[in-house]
Each structure stands twice: as C-alpha cells, then as structure tokens.
C-alpha cells in the first residue's frame, strides 16, 4: 500500500490581495494565485499535471489551466461541502502524487465572495430542488433557517446551555483573531483590533451570535502547490511535509444542520478527522506548536479545541479565557488572524499560513514550529492536515 504520511509536501503558496471588491473576475483571481504559488515554488505552469478545487468554485480546472498555460492534465478533482473542502483539496492532491497519478498538483480557491455571490445572504433557491441536499434543506429553509450564521447559532445555543458558556466566551475568540490580524499587513483588519466590549455591543445576527462572532466576507484567491517530498526538497522553498491529511463525515451527518444526532454540542465529523490525523502522523495535541482552526463563526473554535483533544469537553471556555489561543498563549491559533481577521477564503488562506509557520516566515511567527494542525469548515463534512518541518 502506498503510504501518505511524509511522502508529499506543500512546496509553494500564492495569493491575491484580500479585499471587498477585487474588481476582476474570479477566473483572473484564480490564475493570479496559481502563478504566485508556482513562482513561490520555483516551478512553471508546464510542471503542473493536476488541479484540485472545491465543488463550489466557479472556475473549472480546464479554465484555470487555459489561463495559466498548463498543458496536459492527468488528474483533476473537486471536493464538496463548502469550506469543509479546504484541507481535502490537499488530501486529494497528496493522494494523486503519492500514487503516481500526478507529479505536481495545484489546489486553488478563488471567489468574489463579497462583491459577487455572498454566502451569508439568504438564497430562496437552496431548498427548491428535490436533490438529496434540496430535500435536506427543505426541513429548515421554509422556516427561514437559511443562513450559515443561523445554522451555527443553533449548535452554539445548545453548547452554551450544556456547558454554561457565554457570549463573552465566544467574544474572546474574536478578540484573539483580531489581535493577530492587527499585526498582519495582508489582513483586511490590519491595524484594527477589537475589545470584548465592542464584541458585546455589535448587533445581533442570529442570537446567540453577534456580528463580531461572524467572519468577514472577502474577495480573493489562494493556491497551493503539492508535490512529492523528494521533489520539494530540490525546489526554492523548504518543504512543508504533509504528515497527515484526512476527510471526515459523521454518522447522521447533514450538510450544516446535523440537529438530529444524539448530541448537538460536539463536531463528530471533526472528531473523525482528528483521530485520523493523530493516527497517520503519530503525533498528538502536545506535538502541535500552532493550529489553524477554521473560524467562520467563533463558537466552533471552542468545539474544535475539545474535539481535537487540546482540552476536555466543556473546557474550551477556560482554555480561551486565559488567552490560551493568543499568539503568546499555550496554543497560538490562527496567527494570521483567521477568517475573522485576515480574510474568508474558505479556509485556504489558513493552509498558506500553516506553510509560512513551518517555513518560519510568518509575520506573526510562533517560535520553534515543528508541526501545525489545520482544519477546514466546521459543522459540515470536513477535512484536516498536519504539516511538519523537515
């Protein structure tokens, strides 16, 4: 059997600027990010033989290949379930490289999520089709339960009830992310930290979530170059070895409204991912120097700390209360500012930050980083990575 851990690496990262109005097409953003990632790796478009993106991306692999001048493709693949796809794209790429299906695969995500189609806005069409997803949505959308914030708020309310968690506990996550973004020039909220009081005073989106519990909406693109560890060692940058990569869905899983399972206070699909990551890498929470935890909404950052074993059930509020996830805390989370602070590129910008942390080139560099854990979208079928230094 081909073994995944350690045999592949992220050799290049690239991104456009993160904005609210890119002023150009999503395809152009994709091409720019792919060029930047290839330049970073020291590769040319002719070296690429595989492309992976999200099912939600509007730019077909062949269209990106045409713009960038990539020739023959031997591998192309899409990963489903919104932001849950992020680390899954790297998993697909790594599997293709490890099995010899492709040599160099670029993963990309490009969108005008703020100036174009906004995921945070209600879309009456999502419940309209009798596909399995349309039928699933039809148990919720007719009641006006149709925005990601509201879907997550339903879990958050039960979590608060079960563990005595408060809105301030969620707010501390937002404050930490904005603190990190404040010193990251690439972040939309560069130079704009917030206080817990400002979090509390921000308007309601879907109680118990305030505006500042919700990540921003962004235009931009990120691309990652995945190749064999052996080849990556000969390229321009130190490789970020893929020590583990996993996808996960749980029993009784729905897209984002898994309200019918026994418990609503955990993220079983992230538990699946976490167990696989620890098994594959032979590592555990104590071996991780910094983590990139998907932060589209603050409550699930707490749940992930518990689900991945960084603390016990119901203990994340204490973990966070002492500044535990801040840059100088016991587990710095999202040193780039996350999606709450840097940009919402559906989790791909977090993978790029993980690579910078491994290289030692982040603007908010954590000391002596050996291993970084990365997660993808929460509340949906998801994915994760452990990246490691040589």
């Amino acid at each position, binding site marked *: 059997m081909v073994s995944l851990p350690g045999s592949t690496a992220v050799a290049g990262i690239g991104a456009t600027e993160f904005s*609210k*109005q890119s002023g150009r097409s999503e395809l152009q953003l994709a091409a720019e990010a792919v060029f930047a990632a290839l330049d970073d790796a020291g590769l040319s478009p002719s070296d690429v033989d595989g492309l992976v993106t999200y099912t939600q991306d509007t730019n077909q692999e062949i269209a990106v290949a045409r713009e960038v001048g990539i020739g023959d493709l031997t591998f192309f693949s899409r990963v489903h379930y919104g932001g849950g796809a992020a680390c899954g794209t790297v998993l697909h790429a790594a599997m293709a490289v490890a099995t010899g299906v492709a040599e160099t695969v670029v993963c990309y995500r490009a969108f005008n999520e*703020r100036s174009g189609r906004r995921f*945070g*806005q*209600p879309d*009456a069409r999502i*419940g*309209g*089709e*009798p*596909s399995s997803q*349309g*039928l*699933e*949505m*039809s*148990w*919720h*959308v*007719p*009641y*006006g*339960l*149709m*925005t990601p914030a*509201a879907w997550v*708020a*339903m*879990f958050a*309310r*039960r979590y608060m*009830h079960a563990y005595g968690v408060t809105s301030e506990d969620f707010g501390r996550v937002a404050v930490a992310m904005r603190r990190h973004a404040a010193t990251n020039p690439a972040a939309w909220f560069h130079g704009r930290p917030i206080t817990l009081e400002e979090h509390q*005073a*921000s*308007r*309601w*989106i*879907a*109680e*118990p979530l305030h*505006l500042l519990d919700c990540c*921003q*909406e962004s235009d931009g693109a990120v691309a990652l170059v995945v190749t064999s560890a052996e080849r990556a060692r000969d390229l321009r940058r130190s490789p970020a070895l893929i020590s583990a990569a996993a996808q996960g869905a749980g029993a009784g899983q729905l897209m984002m*409204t898994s*309200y*019918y399972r026994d418990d*609503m206070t955990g993220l079983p699909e992230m538990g699946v991912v976490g167990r696989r990551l620890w098994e594959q890498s032979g590592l555990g929470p104590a071996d991780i120097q910094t983590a990139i935890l998907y932060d589209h909404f603050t409550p699930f950052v707490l749940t992930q700390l518990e689900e991945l074993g960084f603390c016990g059930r119901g203990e994340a509020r204490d973990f966070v209360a002492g500044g535990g996830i801040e840059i100088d805390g016991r587990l710095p989370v999202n040193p780039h500012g996350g999606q709450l602070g840097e940009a919402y590129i559906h989790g791909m910008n977090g993978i790029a930050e993980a690579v910078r942390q491994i290289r030692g080139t982040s603007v908010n560099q954590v000391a002596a980083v050996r291993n970084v854990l990365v997660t993808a979208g929460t509340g949906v079928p998801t994915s994760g990575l452990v990246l490691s230094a040589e």
Partner: protein
Amino acid sequence: MTATAEADLHDRLMALAERQIAVGEVRGVAAADPVNLPMIRHWAAAMGDANPVYTDAEAAAGSAHGEIVAPPAMIQVWTMPGVVRDGRQATTPVDDVLRALDGSGYTGVVATNCEQTYHRYLRLGERLVPATRFTGLAGPKRTALGEGYFVTWNITWYSQDEPVADMLFRVLKFRPRERKTKPEAREPYPLKPAINRDTAFFWEGVGRGELLIQRCADCGELRHPPGPVCPSCRSVERTHVVASGVGEVYSYVVHHNPPVPGRSTPFVVAVVELPEGVRIVGNVVDCPPEEVGIGMQVRVTYRQMDDELILPMWVPQES
C-alpha cells in the same frame, strides 16, 4: 394584527429602544479623507456659496480665521458613507431600531428634524470621527402618511477628542397605508420546500393538520427527517404515526440579520424534541423571542403561508 400582538410589538420596540439608549455613544469609522479644499470647492459651488474664506487662501489669511475654513453646514459631508458600501462602515445603536421597525411593517421613512450645532470652524487637514447616540423612540402616532414611530438620534463629530459639531436627527418610520386588495389574493410565500415521493406524506399530513413521523413498517423505528430506506433494517416499507403534537425546545435561534424573504425579523427557529423520540425544526410563534428558552414546552400549530403551503409551527403550551 390583533390588539394583543400590537401591544406586544409596542412593548418589544420600547424595550429595544431602552436598551439602545443604554448603549450610549458609539464611535463610528473615521472620515475617509481629512477636511480638504477640493471637497469644499465642489460643495461651495453646488450650494452657490461664494464666500472666499472657504476657498481663497489669500482672502482667508486676511479674515478673522487667518486661514481657509470649511463651511460649517458641510459637517455631514465629511463622514458620510459612499453609495457603494465597502464594509468599513461601523454599526450604530440606531441600526437595530430601524431594522426592527422595518421588520414590523414600518417600512416608510421620512426625515422630520435636523438640528445642527457647530462649536467652531474646521480647518484643512482635520480628520473627523462621528459618534452616534440613540436618544429616543416615540409612538405609535397617527400621521397623514400612516401610523408610525419617531426615531431620534444624535451625532457628535470629534476632531481628535474635541467635539466640533452636534446634530439631532429625527425620522418618522411609518406603515404605508395599505392599498385595498382582494382578500383571497395572497403573495406567494418564497421559501417553498422541495418535495419528492419520500417526503410527500409529511406535507400532505401538514395540509390535513396532522404532524406525521415516518415509521418503518417492518421494525417500527421512527425517523425524522424521513428517507426511503430504514437505516436499522433496510426495509423500504414505510408507514407513519401521527405525533402527539407536543414537544420541548431543544435549541433555538433568534434570527435578526440579514433579512429573510417572506419573513419579518426578529423570528425564532427552534429544534423541537418530540416525546416520540425524534426532533423537528420549526418556528416558535405567538411568543416574544426573549421568552423562548431551552426546555420550553410547546405544541404544534399550523400556519397558512400562501394559497398552497401550510407550515407546522410551535406555540407555548400554556397559551
């Protein structure tokens, strides 16, 4: 609306107003540009104000000001957001009140008062920061436009930390008079469920005023949401039971933003646990959102959304 519902709405609005008053002054985003000559020149030209102290450095040097100053009445211009919102606007304590009024049918708006006080002239290069205080809600009042509420707020502009101008602003948010329509004509409800052969029984039941739970005809397992194959015994033989119609709120959200088509905000959506052992999602209605809580006992009710669709919803059991 019934008289009780009107009274509830009024109480909710006044409670919201009280909370927003308590929020106090909230600082907004600093002006995109400092006080500057090009904008002054455009404004003065548009207003037909030829006073050279606003545009002519030499004339201004010889005036009491000693330098160019901005026309005081321009005060709002400096911090007014552009037509294209870029996401950098700050929220103010007024937003929630206006949104609540919009959501309650007071969708019309007309400005009624604007009183500005200028503490001193502004010089070129000063960068202003607005700060907003919500100060009052009064109503409902009958007006020629329709019934409405007067909403009042104050903006203070700061240069550094010095207040340089104040403004009291008041609008009337009113319910536009309804045009007479035929009583049977209903707007189609925009949030329709997709229905197929696996789920049709549920919606047909709702149409008859029955809440149905799928039951496996072989092993008897109850299941919601329903599906074509029993996950316990693989049977495709399905039947259903009529639920008792009571339940308990297991979790809930109060949706405020963004607006949802076919709905006025805020509204409550809950996961309701039924004594039969399944959960179902629905709205909690006829109950102020702040009175909804986990563990609340509810019973089913049915609401006609348009000519075709009926939705099961939940009301407090004691009502």
